[in-house]
């Protein structure tokens, strides 16, 4: 029923191309995230789906109907704006009731639904106040309520957490998950924050330059990013992307990065010796200490410590090769371990070849 299909959508503003062959599908009842940095085209995509933007090319189908040129009002969607867009001169109650005006809903029913929504979002105490007198979190919930009250088939959310502080973001993420579970509504959620996408999305479409470059579940995105762009976007701290080259090694081929070769994971052995690579390595996959059973041990120098409370991020330098410059990488250790490692100390770390992500040096596309 509430299936959304966006095919080959393009949108140009004069010389600027905001969307360039955007295609993806959202299943009924799915929580779908669009992830990308600002100016990747997330907002334009949502606005195009809502009907606020005209398309230069392409097709949008929703609930089995071509809505490419349908008027905004007829699409049966609701949208939550980054700015919340609450009507400043109306009370919360009137804001809630606003979308129901056209529905030919009688007064009693409006009252009932306003009660229902304000209970769901726990904003009953604010009903007779104006939006400007509410906190950011409350305004956010009013915006959600106004979108939900009409029971839309599709809810579009445009960076709804961007204007909230860190604590509220955390709480509201949980809130969105709860709402999605309780209402079973199809949700399309745009965000520049990989954490939001990973925690909430059932599937994530990663956007770049006005198109979707990879669509996958959060786990698959994290474990097998399609290229260095996605690899750098998903996961925090970001994946280390190091220069590497395939050399002849002890057990066949190896990746040389800085000091020593590391045996390649099986399955990547068909790479010719001498091939230039970008080697991806998650900060969490670098292990402290010598552990020859699990992989190759490398010497490193800690040149910066960032204690984050439960964990500590260490900035490492591998080798001091003058010709190429030191290779730098981040790793994450538990706080109690990190506390024992002062800046400037030399440590040993172990890297499991199976954890390496190999990307083409020029195109950045995943090799293995």
């Amino acid at each position, binding site marked *: 029923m509430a299936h959304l299909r966006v095919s080959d959508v393009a949108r140009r503003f004069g010389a600027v191309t905001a969307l360039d062959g955007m295609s993806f599908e959202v299943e009924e009842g799915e929580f779908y995230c669009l992830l990308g940095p600002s100016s990747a085209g997330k907002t334009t995509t949502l606005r195009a789906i809502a009907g606020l933007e005209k398309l230069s090319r392409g097709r949008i189908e929703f609930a089995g109907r071509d809505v490419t040129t349908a008027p905004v009002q007829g699409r049966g969607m609701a949208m939550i704006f980054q700015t919340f*867009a609450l009507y400043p*001169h*109306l009370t919360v109650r009137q804001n809630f009731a606003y979308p129901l005006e056209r529905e030919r809903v009688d007064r009693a029913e409006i009252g009932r639904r306003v009660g229902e929504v304000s209970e769901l979002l726990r904003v009953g105490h604010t009903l007779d106040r104006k939006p400007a007198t509410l906190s950011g979190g409350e305004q956010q919930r009013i915006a959600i309520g106004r979108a939900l009250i009409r029971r839309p088939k599709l809810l579009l959310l445009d960076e709804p957490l961007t204007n909230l502080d860190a604590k509220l973001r955390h709480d509201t993420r949980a809130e969105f998950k709860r709402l999605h579970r309780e209402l079973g509504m199809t949700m399309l959620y745009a965000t520049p924050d990989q954490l939001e996408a990973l925690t909430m999305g059932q599937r994530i479409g990663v956007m770049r330059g006005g198109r979707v470059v990879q669509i996958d579940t959060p786990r698959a995105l994290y474990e097998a990013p399609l290229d260095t762009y996605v690899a750098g976007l998903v996961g925090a701290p970001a994946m280390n992307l190091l220069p590497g080259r395939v050399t002849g090694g002890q057990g066949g081929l190896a990746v040389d990065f800085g000091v020593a070769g590391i045996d390649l994971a099986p399955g990547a052995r068909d790479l010719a010796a001498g091939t230039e690579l970008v080697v991806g390595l998650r900060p969490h996959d670098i292990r402290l200490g010598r552990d020859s059973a699990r992989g190759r041990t490398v010497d490193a120098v800690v040149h910066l410590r960032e204690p984050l409370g439960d964990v500590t991020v260490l900035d490492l330098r591998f080798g001091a090769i003058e010709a190429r410059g030191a290779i730098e990488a981040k790793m994450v250790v538990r706080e109690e371990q990190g506390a024992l490692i002062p800046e400037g100390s030399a440590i040993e770390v172990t890297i499991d070849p199976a954890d390496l992500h190999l990307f083409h040096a020029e195109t950045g596309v995943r090799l293995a």
Partner: protein
Amino acid sequence: MAAASPHDRMAAPEGAGGFLAWLMAPERRGPLLVAPAVIVLFVMNIFPLLWSFGLSFFNYRANRQDVPDFVGLRFYERVLSDPDVWDRFQTTAVIVGSSVVLQLVIGFLLALMFAREFPLRRILLMLVLAPMMLSFVSVGVFFKLYYEPTFGLLSQFVSTFTGEPFVLLGTPTGAIVGIVVADAWMWSPFVMLLVLAGLVSVPKYLYEAAEIDRASWWRRFRTITFPYIKSLLLLAVLFRTIETFKLFDIVYIITEGGPGTATETIAVFTYRVAFQFFRTSQSSALAYIILFVVIVLTNLYLYAVKRREQEVA
């Protein structure tokens, strides 16, 4: 320096040129520089204002050399019980009412038009604003010529249909219409500017949200646009009411208050009382009654300004 007083010694220890040096001292330079303006203001504005207020309590005519005698509030009493005064107030009210309404309607429509982008918008905007920048006298002369029965544009245009010259200013109603049109032509752009400022301050995303919420055009206007321009409209109404209430130049040039006294506004009437009939005290009293009305209106205006500030903040 034979007999230097203690005062001189204190103020100017240098001795010679004592007063000038005292006057030019750094701490007195500021007051000294504004003094000419203050003196002019006092002589030309403040003194006549207070003096005429005093005169309104005396029996005095500016063209006679009598010694004014104190009569208290008699002239106020006389002015307020004069049916002519009330008649002129009525005339003024009719002109103010219709002119302000006309300015509001035209200004509002112009603002709606200029709120969106279209080719040549900037140039047209400048043209539309031009009347506001002109002096009252030139606007008056324009319209006097425009209404002229023999060669005026209006008369020529009407006579192509009727074959007869058209004398707009010949009837009381026609004369009032003529005045109102001239005033509205001049001041509609002012209303437009205010309303436009309000329209531009409405965030665009509210209209988009309303579109998604399926609000009709009228509902969007009522719940989103109007609250943003409401206080500015009030400002426009009050400001234009105050200004039109004092309308003199245009009326005096176009009709001189005629035919008869059909377009004699309270301002023109006061002028006549003061400088044609030379009933100085009576005109002073009348002027102070007008001032009182304007002060009341101005306070309403200031109240509206303050409310707008609170809303915007």
